[in-house]
């Protein structure tokens, strides 16, 4: 974002982040199996990260070049995890 462009409502974003932080911590205490708690906790973390990146880091105002700089390494990470996952998980299961 360059000077002169409108700013998001930073205070509202901060309040959302505070609320989501509370929600994430509360979700970690959900009764029953861990699967639901873990899914909610990481979904909340992803929403918080997107809120920070899109608004505080002004990603929503940036051109495609900046998006490419963010998305390409994230794609590499998915490939890395996908390549490693079968080895560790299946190896562990077979022991």
């Amino acid at each position, binding site marked *: 974002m360059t000077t002169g462009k409108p700013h998001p409502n930073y205070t509202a974003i901060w309040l959302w982040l505070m609320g989501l932080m509370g929600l994430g911590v509360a979700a970690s205490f959900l009764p029953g199996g861990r699967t639901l708690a873990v899914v909610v906790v990481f979904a909340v973390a992803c929403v918080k990260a997107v809120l920070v990146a899109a608004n505080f880091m002004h990603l929503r105002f*940036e051109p495609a070049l900046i998006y490419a700089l963010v998305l390409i390494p994230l794609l590499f990470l998915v490939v890395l995890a996908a390549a490693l996952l079968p080895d560790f998980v299946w190896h562990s299961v077979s022991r």
Partner: protein
Amino acid sequence: MIAHVEIPGLPAGIAPGKVAVWWFLASEIMVFGGLIATYIVFRLGGSGWAEASHHLNVTLATVNTLVLLTSSYTVVQAFVAAERRDARAVRGHLALTILGGFIFLGLKAVEYTTEIRAGFTPGTGIFWSFYYMMTGLHALHVIGGIVVNGAVLATEGVSVRHPHRVELAGLYWHFVDVVWIFLFPLLYLA
């Protein structure tokens, strides 16, 4: 003022410095992302990780999350103030951001001390190796962010001549915040 340097191939209206910072952050995504991806894969393939993480102090980590998220808010307010050429407000918001960094490091030091005294060192097990590696590397980045924000405070906090520098320093600080947003659930909540 924004840096009026035209670089062939760059979209109009984007400062070369911003592209450089995002390039740097892209490399940082790989550093932390690689570590986090490895942690997830090891954890899915092993056992006893959740039990080990129960020894961590969730309350202190929650306070630290609040501190970092709030410091992201103050550093973006410093940028808003820089656009207004309000050096006093830039100074105040950057000082608060730096204070947030120090509070975060102080609480992390309390955590480390408690854990090490309880016998949980990097050599205790694979969870603890990852824990100290990931939080230690993140703490180094917090220190780096404090230095960068301090350098911007020493210049733009006196007289605002390059407001985009406040934004660029903020980009790095927000990245450090985003990394913690993922470390917090990975290590403390999951």
